[in-house]
């Protein structure tokens, strides 16, 4: 074969080889690119999901946290989380928007966004004191009613509490019972007689004192139309319970516990160990809790009639009945009612979620978009 022919042959071989290799490489690159793109999208999704979980954890520790995260390094990518207060399906919520980014600022950048709506706890406007009632109140024994703010564990937080007792009618402080609270930023330790700044009697509730548990939490305007709390209790969300016989309750209480007694019914001598919202109510507003003897309840207690508190309630108590049938003595032993904004926020912030303690994988999450 002449040299020229050989050269031509070689050139042809090189050209053909290059074309074939290019074809193969292109297909391989496409396949690799698909796989890589899928992986990066999944990683961005994982980063976004992690951002929501991190924000939920922050909110669990501090319900007023709204700082978020900006371009945080997570899993080899970037994370940005923002929080805003909003409403979701009529309920007060915190909208958490989490964006995960991989290959940031490069042509192959992938982004994914997850959004969660966490129920925003609130202190109902009906909670005007550690004990809020619509009937004459009598305190005896060594009952302590302290409207100063406390942590959910019962530790005192100075300067941000509320009244000790607020009632539309009268207050009789007897025995060695003590009442205290916070007024205009000044704390008043429980004392007998109570400092006048820590009690309010003969009060008038504009529009009428709330007569149902849902109206205590604000009614329809705040996402609690009549029947909501009962429905939540019946659903069993987050440990919620609905009973007509309190002996069937399981302890510790959690979520929304709704005890609906027959007319004139009384729940006697109970252990109150638990958290959340405890409701003892019926349509006649004459369901009574008598001799709250043991266990510490942390949260919001809403009852038609409460008689003889001998244990510890951290949060607040709202009584509904204007005419308690079994007397007005709210405590004659060694009980304590310690106001706690934290306990009330925890109780109201964790309700309204679906199965498993959350419409999402966290308690108090109303919905999760991923």
């Amino acid at each position, binding site marked *: *074969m002449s040299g020229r022919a050989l050269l031509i042959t070689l050139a042809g*071989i090189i050209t*053909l*080889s290059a074309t*074939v*290799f290019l*074809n*193969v490489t292109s*297909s*391989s690159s*496409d*396949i690799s690119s*698909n*796989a890589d*793109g*899928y992986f990066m*999208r999944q990683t961005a999704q994982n980063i976004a999901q992690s951002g929501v979980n991190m924000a939920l954890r922050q909110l669990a520790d501090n319900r007023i946290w709204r700082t978020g995260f900006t371009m945080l390094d997570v899993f080899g990518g970037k994370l940005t989380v923002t929080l805003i207060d909003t409403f979701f*399906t009529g309920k007060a919520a915190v909208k958490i928007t989490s964006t995960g980014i991989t290959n940031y600022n490069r042509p192959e950048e992938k982004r994914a966004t997850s959004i*969660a709506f966490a129920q925003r706890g609130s202190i109902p406007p009906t909670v005007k004191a550690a004990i809020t009632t619509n009937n004459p109140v009598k305190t005896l024994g060594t009952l302590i009613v302290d409207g100063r703010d406390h942590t959910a564990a019962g530790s005192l937080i100075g300067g941000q509490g509320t009244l000790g007792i607020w009632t539309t009618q009268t207050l009789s402080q007897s025995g060695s019972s003590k009442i205290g609270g916070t007024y205009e930023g000044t704390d008043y330790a429980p004392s007998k007689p109570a400092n006048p700044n820590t009690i309010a009697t003969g009060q008038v509730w504009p529009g009428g004192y709330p007569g149902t548990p849902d109206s205590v939490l604000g009614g329809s305007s705040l996402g609690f139309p009549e029947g909501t709390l009962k429905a939540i209790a019946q*659903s069993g969300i987050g440990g919620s319970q609905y009973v007509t016989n309190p002996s069937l309750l399981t302890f510790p209480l959690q979520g929304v516990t709704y005890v609906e007694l027959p007319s004139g019914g009384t729940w006697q001598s109970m252990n109150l160990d638990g958290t959340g919202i405890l409701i003892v109510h019926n349509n006649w507003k004459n369901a009574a809790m008598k001799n709250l003897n043991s266990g510490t309840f942390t949260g919001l207690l809403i009852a038609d009639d409460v008689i003889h508190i001998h244990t510890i309630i951290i949060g607040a108590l709202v009584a509904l009945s204007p005419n308690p049938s079994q007397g007005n003595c709210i405590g004659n032993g060694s009980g304590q009612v310690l106001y706690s904004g934290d306990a009330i926020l925890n109780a109201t912030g964790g309700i309204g979620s*679906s*199965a*498993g303690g*959350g*419409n*999402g*994988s966290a308690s108090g*999450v109303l*919905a*999760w*978009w*991923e």
Partner: protein
Amino acid sequence: MHGMIDYLGSLIISGMVFLVLMGFYLTMGETAATQTFNSGIQEDLTSTTEILEYDLRKIGYRVSDSVKVTFAGPDKIVFRTDIDNNGSVDSIQFSMVTAMGPSGGSNPYVVNRTVNGVTAKLTRMRVTNLNFTYYNAQGAVTSVLKDIISVKVSLAMENTVAYDGNFPKAYWERVIKPQNLR
């Protein structure tokens, strides 16, 4: 004489080189064709699974009652979610159905996505298997709709065009745990 030997030697060697090159090109050509078909089926699989995952992750979003999956079959799932986040709950269905038109390959099926009664074909290539398995909170297989916490999806596809008598295939499997079911 010497010239003859040289010519014969060149002929033999060039022949061998030619055969090697031909074999090489045939192999590379087959590889290129296979890669092209694989790339095509992979693209179809990726786009189909992206839609499947996107929708399944949102099962139960904005659905207030306890039944968010309304039908749980081995090759069909129907669930409720507000897929376009406009405040109204939609009904979405994924199912494997018989493909219309000319058939070929081992199984003439496609995956359909139906949103509020409007159906669209998801796959360009041929689907050989779409399977849903449903699990409860304990990780056990369940058929009770209200107990479903997670869904395992497996999807197998093959190219509609065969190469050398074989249809290139691809397979994908994933367990999806929608946040709104937990």
